[in-house]
């Protein structure tokens, strides 16, 4: 059962904004409130929105399940890989090996005074946030999918 036209149209309009906002929260996790888990949950809400607005069995074919699985595993691998990388460089597990390195996320000098925030800081914390974000995005969407498909079997 899909919902009324108003709901579907609002879902269409809302969906990109929800996803973009979730990705924003993931990317800025190290300098603003929020982070990987929160952002990933927001993105997964976008998927839930579409599923609720349109009927599940209409949307089912459009959802790339294999991609979600890959996200779930890949996010966690990235997370542990980031931890292990520090170990390979000779530091303990989860050492922040990118901080102050000057490369990606490693700007050592942060501007003083009121500013919009420097994204290129935080060492490997943004990496961790991105990893968690990818994982939660895939994982929560899968949870929603499984739960809805379970409900579906009951009704039809």
């Amino acid at each position, binding site marked *: 059962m899909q919902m009324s036209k108003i709901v579907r149209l609002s879902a269409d309009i809302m969906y990109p904004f929800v996803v973009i906002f979730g990705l924003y929260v993931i990317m800025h996790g190290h300098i603003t409130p929020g982070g990987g888990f929160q952002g990933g*949950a927001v993105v997964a809400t976008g998927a839930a929105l579409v599923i609720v607005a349109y009927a599940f069995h209409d949307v089912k074919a459009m959802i790339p399940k294999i991609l979600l699985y890959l996200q779930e595993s890949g996010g966690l691998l990235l997370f542990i890989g980031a931890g292990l990388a520090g170990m390979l460089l000779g530091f303990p597990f989860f050492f922040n090996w990118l901080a102050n390195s000057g490369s990606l996320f490693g700007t050592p000098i942060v501007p003083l*005074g009121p500013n919009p925030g420097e994204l290129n800081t935080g060492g490997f914390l943004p990496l961790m946030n991105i990893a968690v974000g990818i994982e939660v995005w895939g994982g*929560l969407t899968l949870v929603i999918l499984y*739960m809805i498909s379970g409900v579906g079997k009951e009704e039809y």
Partner: protein
Amino acid sequence: MFANLPYLTVVVLTVIGLSIILLKRNMVKVTMGLNILTSAVNLLIIVLGYREGGIAPIYTLAPQTYMVLPTPQALCLTSIVIGVATTALLLSFTMVIYRKYGTVNVAEMRELKE
């Protein structure tokens, strides 16, 4: 009295959560009770970390007042994440049981009691 209000909230939430878990037979309600109880503990941790007049621990151009330690918030976030996983698993179990037994009432799930 006013300063203790958050602690009183924690107590009230704990009592509500525990009484739901102990008195309700509906599995969905028990899940809700567990969630309320988790929220009570999370609130307790957050309240313990609150310092009046403290600022966020950001060192750039920080004024000379004292900062709060972000550990309680970190603990709380971790516990929320665990809570989400817990709730999802509990609800999935409830769904499977509803499909098998046709009920979510724990008193009617009698197969194991024989």
